[in-house]
Each structure stands twice: as C-alpha cells, then as structure tokens.
C-alpha cells in the first residue's frame, strides 16, 4: 500500500510558476505523480508543462479532484500557503521551504492538527512512495520499490540511507522527510502508526539527529505499540553543546538533553536496532529479515 501518497494521489503545486516549482512539477509528473493543478496568485489560466494554473487553492479544488498539495514558496509566504491549503480542504500538505519562522509553524502545526490535515515539513525534500508517486524534489533514481519505510529529519542523510539500501537490493515502501526544523508539521510519532498499519511496510528506519525530543517520544511509542522492527541512526555524536548545528532543530542543550547518547540509549531500551554508521544500514536490515 505505502503511506501518505500512492497512485491515487492528486497533487497541487503551490508556487508552480517559480523556478523550483515549475522544474520540480515537471520532474514529479515525469516520475508518474498525478500533478493535477498549480497555484500562483495572479497567474490563473496559464499552463505549465501542461498543468493548469489557478489563482488560489480554492479554484484548483473546484476544478480538479486534488487531495494533496506541495508548496514551493519562500519561507515568508509559507504560513499563508499552508493555511490556504488546509482551509480549502486539502488532506496532505508538504512544505519545502527552509527557514520558516517558528511562530508561523507553531500556528500552522496546530491548525493542521485541528483540521485533520497531515502537514509534512518544512525544510523537507518531501515524500516518495517508489514506483507510485513522488511529492518532493529528491533524486528519484536512488529509490527502489520495496518494504522498508524511512523517516528522516535530514534530506541528505535520507539519500545516504536509501542509496545504501537500494544498492543492496532493499526497496522502500515510503520515504518521508519530516524536516529539520524545531516544529515539524508531523513527527515520527504521527507517522509510526501509519507504517505499522501499512501492509507493504515490514520494517521502519528512523534517521534522527541531535536536538529536541522527537526521537525520545518516538521511542516510548515504539516500545508500547509497534510490532514491526525499527532501525535507527542518530547524527551529531561529535556536536558541541549549545550550538545550533545548521538545522534550526539540531541544537543540543547543555546537560545532554537532545544529545545523541541519550537518544541512542532510550531508543535501544525501546527495542530499536541502532546503527553507528550510515553505511551499516543495509546489513542491519538484512540481518533482521
């Protein structure tokens, strides 16, 4: 089955007339994603790569059967774009931009939750269910259809993991970038139940990093509710305390909270299989199967 997106996903691209928006709209279409509409205020009536453009998400919804949206809009317009999509009734919103203000995401996160919308990102490469649909900008030739679900805070580390898996013949059901920001729209805990229920997924990989408590929260859920095996990698072993390490979310507070050792221990105690190096992922997965 895969989770979040599949052959039936009908996608709107918000910001489709921008450089990234138009480029990736065409790449997603080429991959097989049903890109049914684009939205850019003031550009309604145009066509980009054969995709009709509308002035608003409402217009796009009226004229198509869209059920998902991806935003290629700058950080300062991201909140408005997310809220517009949710308000128009979109069930899955993926937002790419890096550097969205925390207060904007704070509101968007809870507004999405209150409206039963799954919000992914910001600061994410998107989602891919290999062979079915891609909602994002990842380089799709790395991916292979299969039975491993992947969630990652870092885009580049998810490429590393997937590359290693695919090279050893291990395919993926759905790969999700949850994003590197302090307030991801959805976190591991929101997505783990979907993977647990998904008939295509047999194993889940979590690619975490220092900062925050999302891995710790996930560990508790895994211990109590997950029957499928989980493998995890946590980046940031050598990161000094108190420094923001590139991702707004990757900060380790003095005292070790959010630190790698703490996260590793808690995940391990929850029965998660830990790897120390990215290159160990495929071998670990093979040893479990």
């Amino acid at each position, binding site marked *: 089955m895969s989770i979040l997106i599949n052959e039936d996903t009908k996608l709107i691209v918000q910001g489709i007339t921008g450089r990234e928006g138009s480029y990736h709209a065409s790449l997603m279409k080429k991959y097989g994603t049903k890109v049914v509409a684009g939205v850019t205020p003031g550009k309604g009536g145009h066509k980009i790569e054969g995709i009709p453009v509308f002035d608003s998400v409402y217009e796009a919804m009226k004229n198509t059967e869209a059920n998902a949206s991806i935003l290629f809009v700058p950080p300062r317009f991201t909140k408005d774009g997310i809220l517009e999509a949710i308000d128009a009734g979109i069930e899955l919103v993926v937002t790419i931009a890096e550097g969205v203000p925390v*207060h904007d995401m*704070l509101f968007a996160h809870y507004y999405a939750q209150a409206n039963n919308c799954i919000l992914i990102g910001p600061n994410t490469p998107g989602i891919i269910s290999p062979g079915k649909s891609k909602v994002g900008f990842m380089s799709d030739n790395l991916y292979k259809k299969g039975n491993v679900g992947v969630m990652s805070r*870092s885009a580049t580390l998810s490429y590393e993991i997937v590359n290693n898996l695919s090279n050893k013949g291990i395919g993926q059901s759905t790969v999700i970038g949850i994003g590197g920001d302090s307030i991801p729209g959805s976190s591991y805990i929101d997505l783990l139940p979907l993977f647990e229920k998904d008939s295509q997924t047999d194993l889940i990989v979590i690619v975490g*990093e220092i900062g925050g408590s999302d891995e710790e929260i996930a560990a508790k859920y895994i211990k109590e509710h997950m029957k499928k095996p989980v493998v995890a990698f946590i*980046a940031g072993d050598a990161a000094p305390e108190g420094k923001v390490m590139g991702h707004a979310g990757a900060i380790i507070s003095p005292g070790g909270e959010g630190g790698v050792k703490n996260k590793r221990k808690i995940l391990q105690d929850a029965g998660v299989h830990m790897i120390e190096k990215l290159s160990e992922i495929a071998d670990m997965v093979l040893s479990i199967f």
Partner: protein
Amino acid sequence: MKLYEYQVKEIFFKYGIGIQEGKFAKTPQEAKQIAENIGGSVVLKSQVLVGGRGKAGGVKIVDDLSDVEKAADEILKTEIKGYKPVGILVEKKMEIKKELYLSIVFDRKMKKTVIIFSPSGGMDIEEISKSSPEKITKVYINELLGLQSFHINRLLPLVNNDKEMFSKLKKIVKALYSIYKKSDSMIVEINPLALTENGDLVALDGKMEIDNNAEYRQKSLIDTDNKNAEDPIEIIGKEAGFVVIKLKGNISIISNGAGLALSTLDLLDKYNMGVANILDLSGGATPEKVMRAIKVVIQDKDVKGILFNIFGGITRCDEIARGIAGALKSIPEDISVVCRLQGTNRDEGINILKGVNLDADTDLEETVKNIVSTMNRG
C-alpha cells in the same frame, strides 16, 4: 539572536512594563553624565549577551557620582566569559521588597508556548526548579487560542490571592505575551521582577531571544552589535549567505545539508580529526555559490583541509564540481582538498574534477580516510 538588556528594556518600556530610570552608555564619560541626570546611587551593568556577569564583576553599585567614571571604565574593560561588553546600562538604584520570576518561552519539547512564573525570583530559574520546584508554575497556551485571562488566573494562588498585585501582574503578562508574539521571540524573561516598597512591579533585568528565521521581519530590533556574540567566521559566512558553524580543529566541511555535515563531523571524530568549521550550502547550489563558500572557509586560519561532502538531490554534483574547479587556484597550497560526490549528476561532477587533477570519491568513509591520511602526512 539574543538582545542586550538595554534593548530589551527599551521594548519593555514601549509596552508599558515598568523599568528603572536609566540609559545606555558607550563610554565612562557618558555613564557619568547619565548618573548625574539620574541623581543618587546608581547601578552600572555590563552589556553582554552571556549570563553570570554579576559574579564576573560586570555589575557595580556606585553611591558617589565621582566614582562613576572609574567604575564604568573597569566594567568596560572586563570581559565576561570571553565577551567584551558593548557598553553599560546606567540605572537608578532601587529599594525592593521581593523578587519574582516571569517568562514566556517557546517549549520545543511540548511544541507550545508556556508562561513560567515563580514568586521567588532573582536566581537562575534552573536553580529554582531544582531547589524548590513547587514554587514554579507553568501554564501552557493552546496556540489556536492565544493568551486568555484564564491562563493568567492560574497564577493567582502564587501571589496569595493578593488582588492588587495580581492585577499588576496580569498587565505585565499580557504585555510580555504581546512582545513575545510581535517580536518572534523564543524567550522573553524578566528576572527578577521586583516588587518595590510602594507596591509596584518593575523589571530589573530582561532577556530576549529572537528566532533567527524571523530576522527578516524583526530588523528594527536587531543592531549590528547583536552579531558580536558570533565567531568572526560565522559572521563572514552569514554575510555571504551561508550558515557557518565554528568548531575546534583543522578541517572545513562543506556539504549540501545540515544532517550530512553532522554525520561527516561524527565520522571525522571517530578518526580523531577535529573540524575547524562547517559550511552548509543548502539545496540547489550554483558554481558561483560554491566559489563563494570556498572564499569564506579559507578565511578561517585554522583550516588546513577542506572536505566536500555532496549528496545531490536538488543539488547537482556537476554544478558543485564546476565551482570547486573554478576556485581551486584561490585555495592556498597548504590546504588539501578532498571531495565526495554522490547522487544527481555524480559522474559528470567526477569528470569535471578529474579535469583539474582532483580525485573525487563516491563513498564517504573512503573520503574521510583520504583526508585523514593526507593531513597526517602533511
């Protein structure tokens, strides 16, 4: 981005939160002038962005006007935890009855805004939470509701149902919440919030940190001085449009993602190699951007090697390679360069680098081993 106390107090004043009479001075002479205008005993406070200035000699009470210049001069010369003060806040000394604590904070773990209040302030809130946790109240705010009266009413028992004081506190909480929201703060803190002899509540000290992602809409709050707390190379990086993190070591990591940079750092650490700095190119870097990045990191005198770790997605390896090839001549000879290219247009990238006699690996560990042996040889 942290603000200085004097900047925070200017904001408090605008929002009607009581502060002492006072002014910011850059020189001992200015400090004296301000002290003279205030009259009586004054407090001189070093303006730095790190805590613990009291213990480090950054705060002085001066009763005699003739002593102000000397005391101010001493404070200006005293570095606090390695940071030079940008000036002095000169304030009227105030008699106080009691010290309280109040802050509004973004709690990342809960993903919520929280009001933290304690009737016994003055010291570090972490210390209070250790020594007497029962004296701290946290009130979480539902983001979709925003601050409501019922949130603040939960503080009533902590002031022993003192109605008069509570109404003053309520006003301050509301003002503080407005500041927190309107200035994109991660934290706004008043510690201590002083209860004066005549029953007023006054913010004796204030801390604020602005969300870096919201800097573009908070420009009026941020002075060039606020950048002093960052390492020079981080500032050079920021001005060139990059996130640079200064660390201790000799290798510069240039990568196209924060996670990738972090795991490269981890791997180098396993080989006991220190990292001088990390530069994140982010997604979609052009050759020009790569050349600009190289120009930034070679300004860090600690750098003896540059490790490129690129896993192309939205980023194209050929574009990165073109940038590296273009900037190669500008890199001093004593700095070694190793590259790892993987992902989008990898082979094109490797070929471009071959053209300038640079070998690129596709495997990260091989690349790390390569720089380790090169540097150990050098």
